[in-house]
């Protein structure tokens, strides 16, 4: 544990022009700024943020970190991310309460087991640590899980990624912000992007109009999870994205009972216990499009029913606070990273429910892409044109786990 720095990021006054303007001071935008400066020596960078830094999905997610994805393309970028996580606190000299307590995915039926085995085997061959646990091993690893057969959907096993875990979301955003700031990046909060400037009507994008005035840039990077479509539509760019509420909650504080992160797709639970003692849980996505940052209460009730089934002691726990974020969901539940049909405009969006764990790698590959002006290797499969060719990276179609 390192002490908090004596200074976080400055409140920068935006200059008239930058080499790169990043729209969105969430985790991904800030990581992009940091790696632009750190890896590519590009420090003439401004991050503009509509609200307060890290106040979107970064402040609202349930902080699960793992890399055990099915498809090669996913495993590659998420494993790269996990490796970065493993050295991040040192690299940024910043305590992010990163804890590799393991991520346990519960399996409830034969089809579930089949696809989990497929994923575990793929992970191993991709160099991603993954284990299959039979029900008794699940009980050994996480004693409070109910593995009795006398439940509606008995736990018949699980998959475990020991290197998975959690981190303190706010501190991740602040860590990247502070490090980027130290390298000379300007971070401007409470500056809402209201439009884009272009060389000519349909020419390259060469800046953004904000509530604080126009800021020119050679390259503009959209990293505005939740509002990607809204911003893209300002330059007539249509995206295969729908924005949905994703709800989460914390319980009151309890002495430690949960030593790992537990997820169950079949009954829609994912939960971990924060250092302060609250249980942090995610619910399912609400069905309808919304930017309201709130969802419907029956989603929470349904999740509580499932949680009590999996963790009988949670019956006594109390819901302290519920909230909602806005997730940008692509048809294949995989992100879009790279160039757009509009010169000068780059995009990184559509992370759906998987964005937090990808924060370092997302910034890393997007910075690479921005610096080179072409998609980096890890980003290539996530190009916008995959929706035309049909080369989707269908993580939910192929029974991957959510979040």
């Amino acid at each position: 544990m390192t002490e908090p720095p004596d200074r976080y990021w400055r409140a920068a006054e935006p200059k008239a022009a930058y080499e790169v303007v990043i729209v969105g001071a969430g985790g991904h935008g800030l990581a992009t700024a940091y790696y632009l400066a750190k890896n590519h020596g590009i420090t003439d960078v401004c991050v503009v943020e509509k609200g307060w830094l890290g106040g979107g999905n970064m402040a609202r997610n349930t902080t699960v970190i793992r890399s055990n994805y099915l498809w090669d393309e996913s495993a590659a970028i998420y494993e790269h991310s996990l490796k970065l996580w493993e050295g991040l606190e040192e690299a940024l000299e910043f305590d992010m309460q990163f804890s590799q307590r393991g991520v346990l995915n519960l399996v409830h039926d034969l089809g579930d087991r089949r696809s989990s085995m497929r994923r575990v085997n793929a992970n191993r061959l991709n160099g991603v640590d993954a284990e299959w646990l039979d029900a008794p091993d699940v009980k050994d690893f996480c004693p409070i899980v109910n593995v009795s057969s006398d439940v509606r959907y008995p736990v018949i096993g699980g998959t475990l990624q020991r290197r998975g875990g959690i981190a303190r979301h706010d501190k991740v955003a602040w860590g990247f912000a502070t490090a980027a700031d130290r390298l000379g990046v300007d971070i401007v909060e409470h500056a809402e992007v209201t439009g884009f400037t272009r060389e000519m009507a349909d020419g390259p994008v060469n800046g953004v109009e904000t509530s604080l005035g126009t800021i020119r840039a050679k390259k503009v990077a959209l990293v505005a999870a939740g509002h990607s479509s809204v911003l893209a539509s300002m330059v007539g760019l249509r995206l295969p994205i729908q924005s949905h509420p994703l709800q989460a909650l914390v319980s009151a504080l309890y002495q430690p009972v949960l030593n790992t992160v537990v997820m169950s797709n079949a009954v829609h639970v994912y939960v971990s216990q924060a250092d302060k003692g609250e249980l942090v849980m995610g619910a399912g996505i609400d069905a309808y499009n919304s930017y309201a940052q709130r969802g419907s209460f029956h989603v929470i009730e349904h999740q509580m029913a499932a949680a009590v089934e999996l963790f009988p002691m949670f019956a006594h726990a109390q819901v302290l606070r519920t909230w909602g974020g806005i997730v940008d969901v692509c048809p294949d539940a995989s992100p879009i990273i790279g160039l757009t049909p509009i010169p000068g405009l780059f995009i990184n969006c559509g992370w759906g429910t998987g964005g937090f764990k990808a924060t370092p790698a997302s910034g890393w590959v997007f910075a690479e892409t921005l610096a080179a002006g072409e998609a980096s290797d890890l980003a290539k499969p996530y190009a916008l044109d995959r929706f035309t060719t049909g080369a989707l990276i269908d993580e939910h179609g192929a029974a991957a786990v959510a979040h």
Partner: protein
Amino acid sequence: MDVGGSGVDRDSSLGFTFDGTDYLGLAGDTLASALLANGVDVVGASPILGRPRGVVSAGVEEAGAMVEVGAPWLDPIVPATAVELVDGLVAMGRPGVGVLPADATGAQAADHRHLHVETLVVGGGIAGLRAAREATGRVLVVDERHHVGGISPWSTEIEDLTAELVTRDETALITRATALGVYDDGYVVIYERAQPVARVHHVRAARVVLATGAHERPIAFADNDRPGVMLASAARTYVEWFGVRPGNRAVVFSNGRSGLESAMALHEAGVEIAVVLDVGPASQPHRDRLREAGVEVREGWAVAGTEGESRLSAVHVAGPGGESETFDADLLLVAGGWNPAVQLWRGINGGLRYDDATACFVPDGAGPPWLEITGAAAGEGIDPVTPYWYAPAEDLSHHYVDLQRDSTVADVLAATDRRLRSTEHVKRETYIGTAIDQGRTSGVLTAAIVNGAQGAGPGAQGPTNARPPYTPVPFSVLAGLDRGPKLLDPIRTTPIHRWHQERDAPFENVGQWKRPWYFPLGNEDLPAAVHRECLAVRNEVGVMDASTLGKIEIVGPDAARFLDRVYTDRMSTLSVGSIRYGLMLGLDGMVFDDGVVMRLAENRFLATTTTGGAARVLDHMEEWLQTEWPDLRAHCTSVTEQWSTIAMNGPASRRVLEALGTSFPVDAPSFPFMTWREGEVAGIAARVARVSFSGELAYEINVPGWYGVSTWEALMDAGAAHGITPYGTESMHVLRAEKGFVIVGQDTDGTVTPHDLGMSWLVRKDDSDFIGKRSLRRSDTIRPDRKQLVGLLPVEPDQLLPEGAQLVERDTGVIPMAMVGHVTSSYASPILGRTIALAMVESGRARHGQMLHAPLLGATIAAEVTAPIFYDAEGARRDG
């Protein structure tokens, strides 16, 4: 309810235990008031520093006195001010952190109800009761306390309003009921703390009135967390409502009128008022009344700090000219202004504005059209105050802001020194406002300190947002009845289910359905039972309950045209009496479901679906009919449960059917494969289809659901002579795999086209359109190196490839290793006496004969790629 100005009944005392000591309280007490009455001033310790904590409020804004309730109900962590005293209550102090019991025993049970009203009033204080009186139609008033009237002293108006409301037929008044949250379209979730079974009311209201009142807030000064330091209005509530004197000698510190009123009330209740320190706006009448009563009032004086072993014993005060003085006192009443309770209002995106006169944030603008806010919650009648946030001092590290987080003014300023500018950031740095009270007393103060530190006005930034629920609610209460093996999610069963249960068949969850997995004899395990079942089907006859298969009747003049657009092959050319296998694609060209289609009449078809796909397919068909082709006159009706479906497979099945008795000939020539017949079977109307998912001679017998079990039993009798064997889903899977029949959802995963499955013969080539056709031409879907369905024969015939195993060309041992495919189905085939598997492999059809390897933990299994069919390739067995 005692209307003598006190909410407790002096004639009924209740016994309770706190921290192991027995005490007596009164009916109407809260645990907090009972503890105060018994002189218990230290209730618990603070969470981080372990400093003593006492009661500071009289409501849900409590940040000091946290307890665990152990009986008669369990609650790991709750403010003592929110616990209604009952006889036999057992509680102990907790430092804000609860201990969860080992299991669900004793968890709060709850009953959910849907309620519809014209007007819901949240809050039973005067403002709420007034609003309820004006409302018409069905009216519901809820209040979180165990009494109405709010925190105002009992008055005849409250009495009259209550009396009037309780007599109205369509008006209900529920106490101990908290509105957890206000949601879209007048939907409010209410938690009623009834015992032993709590209630959750899901209220749909045409109109919602928030009358949630306001909470008094403290002022920060050195050691302001000491037991004996209390909100002035709370102390007043304790004397007036509960008849309890929270101390004997009090110093009062106020920046508005209400503190002076509280002082007067306590004085009248016999609490000695050592001095009143008034930093508020001139309110001469109040000061005069106090002075006339002999109470000293010092204008411009403020509290500097406190003293005491654990409980307060003295208060240090400072004058406007820097004078200082110390008063002995066991009570310090603080009145720092009021915060309207706007949590529910904000939860549905109601706006706020800072009001200078009252130095608080009040509702601003309109919420949803069905929502109103009134009374103190709306900022009405709130006392003007002179903003006074914390006492100036060199050392601010004991000026507590959030007692539940042991965080101080110094902590907030340290955060702003580190350049955190947003109250949200400061909250996340200091954890202020994240405890059970969600910053009710600390939020506005924190915002004021942050604003001040940045030289901004007090309204520049508001407090961070409190979120629903308004107060914490147990998981078990929200789960309600949806718990346990029977009610978490419906169990769907077929009419023959009991028969399977009586045979001790283990069941497999398939969606919500329970399907018999296998039928063990004696102590057979799965492999043994499956071995026996499969051989019975291959050599004699077996029966399976296939009732869960989805069945949809498609009827109407355009039914045939419609089905042509839904399936990849043509159904309009199907003749009445015949059956055709069909594939259904999603718009993305990927296999979506499969089944057979029977033409029952010119304009009437019956389509079957996978068990898991039934609802999805019906929705899919109706979506296209209604949204894209409303011109087509065809209608889809689910008949899944109209029919019990029994699949009889095996060379002896014809003889069994004959033994059962049919009104139509069943020999191959007169009843060919892929046709159906209607007539009597065993004397009842049935539809029999010659379809086979095993490759054997097979008859699928469909009878009305209520004949399902008797038909099944009749079959078992009729087949006894042939050793008829019931089999489950596992054997069904093995049998179909031996024939290379795919199971959608097992061998496919939403990324597989018919061509990938080698089923191009099912995809018509003419230029007529069908759903998903266009997607099949996309550049990625015509890649030659896509994964294709193949068979696999492990080199060692007794080696079983695990389903889900990944396949490589060479096990180089080097990670990462390029994968070319994965195993989708794998079984030991009894009839072949060896293991077999199906897999999806890149360019699989070009690899027949090639060797692939499955690198597994500890072992690598080699297997030869073959065509996906292992048994009776020429199809000689299907006619028996």
